[in-house]
């Protein structure tokens, strides 16, 4: 990473009336490996918080980055097995047992930065509706896997922990890449905040700039207040919020 520095910020906010410990979104940050992730556990699923944390935390720690659909598949299969192994011996009610039988589900997006003289780049992999947004100055250079706020819906694709349910989703893994320059900002966002961000891009750049300043300056209490008021105004879905902001700094 010679010649470059990263400024990384993260923010997690649970749904209204919930504790942070109940938040089913998770972030993974490994600045040494220049690797970042957001995972969003599905509330309806069994142990979704653990599944989201496992995905986000493991992805940024593995030795070599998983950035191909084939590699992602093998990695997910192993993570799913690990999650299910953690459930062994649990004494569950009949309904929790039924939910566990279906496994857990989460959306995932992972980002790897690669710094090379004259050709620095990012690569990302995503499955579901957690998003990467790449900004340069005031322009959005790229967004994946969803680039339009109207592209979000109530039944997104998710990463299943059960091997028997994974086959149906492998074709939907999205891989993207781009170049980076000093001053670029890359955001990893769970679905509600991603939809909100993409909507503001079209409607309210000023509000977007305020959000960016608050997260850059780590003013978490003000961020929480901002999102609470946006929820009340109905501009953002009352859902868990996860944000990872990575700014590429010069020397």
């Amino acid at each position, binding site marked *: 990473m010679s010649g470059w520095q990263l400024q990384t910020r993260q923010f997690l906010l649970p749904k209204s009336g919930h504790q942070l410990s109940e938040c089913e979104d998770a972030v993974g940050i490994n600045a040494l490996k220049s690797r970042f992730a957001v995972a969003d556990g599905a509330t309806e*699923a*069994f142990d979704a918080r653990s599944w989201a944390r496992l995905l986000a935390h493991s992805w940024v720690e593995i030795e070599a980055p998983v950035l191909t659909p084939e590699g992602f598949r093998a990695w997910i299969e192993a993570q799913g097995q690990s999650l299910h192994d953690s459930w062994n011996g649990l004494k569950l009610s009949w309904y*929790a047992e039924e939910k566990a039988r279906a496994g857990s589900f989460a959306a995932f997006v992972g980002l790897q930065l690669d710094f090379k003289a004259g050709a620095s780049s990012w690569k990302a992999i995503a499955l579901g509706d957690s998003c990467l947004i790449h900004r340069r100055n005031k322009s959005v250079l790229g967004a994946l896997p969803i680039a339009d706020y109207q592209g979000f819906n109530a039944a997104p694709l998710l990463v299943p922990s059960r091997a028997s349910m994974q*086959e149906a989703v492998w074709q939907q893994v999205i891989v993207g890449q781009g170049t980076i320059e000093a001053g670029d900002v890359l955001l990893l966002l769970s679905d509600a905040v991603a939809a909100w961000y993409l909507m503001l891009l079209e409607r309210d750049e000023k509000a977007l700039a305020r959000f960016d300043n608050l997260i850059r300056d780590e003013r978490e209490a003000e961020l929480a207040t901002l999102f609470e008021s946006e929820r009340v105004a109905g501009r953002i879905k009352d859902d868990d919020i996860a944000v990872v902001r990575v700014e590429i700094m010069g020397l």
Partner: protein
Amino acid sequence: MYSAQITRANPTCILLLLDQSGSMSDPFSGNSAIKKSDFVADVVNHTLHDLVIRCTKTEEVRNYYYISVIGYGHRVGSAFGGPLEQRRLAPIAEVADYPLHVKTSYKRVADGGGGWVEIPVRYPVWVQPSAAGKTPMCEALFEVKSILEAWLREHPTGFPPTVLHLTDGESSDGDPGQIGQEIMSLRTDDGPVLLFNCHISSRRAHKIEYPADEAQLPDGFARTLFQISSQLPTNFLAAAAQLGVHAADGSRGFVFNGDPSSIVQFYEIGTSLTGMTPYKWMDDKLNLE
């Protein structure tokens, strides 16, 4: 209308009204192996199972629904067995935790490698088959109205209550038209109470599902049930479409001379509420030993 978000702070009520008169011990026409009362109890238990699973978030059951199961036959009252026996209405979390008993069966599931494995599955039972006495439909509908009035006093703004009424015969205590209309006139801010009726038959007779007018109905009893059946709101129409059931704008939540598949679909459509994908428990059942 019918767009209120169903939350723990603003739950809705689902009331299953079951004919448990003596004739329910007769078999369905063309399938003498299955008693109507056995089949209906099975469907009701699966419906309750589905509603619990729908409200289960991780290991917790959230009280989005309050459930009532009222039977009428030799008596009118709660059809729950076990710890909920005396309860006219119970939050779904209590329904989850207090079945009459839980039976274990085996379910065939994909093993992820192209094969199948059989795994033990626990199925709770809340309602046992019952078939005795006459058909006091009016008394039962008065009981329904009483439960709903109490509910609506406490929950005036939520998604309106849904009443799913299943019967195999005519009322033995008078014309249910008036009390049915009174139930349909109850409402929340989000719309009138939904009353859907499913009539099942032991005779081999042409079934009529979700009609939009009375023209094709064979007799006065069918017309009475039609008149006390609510129109299917858009969300419910979408659920019907997903199940391949023909229903259109103006269709009533009404089945006449229904067969076993009609009953299953009636409960699947009737509990789809805000448009959630119907849970096709029949698919599970086919895999059960």
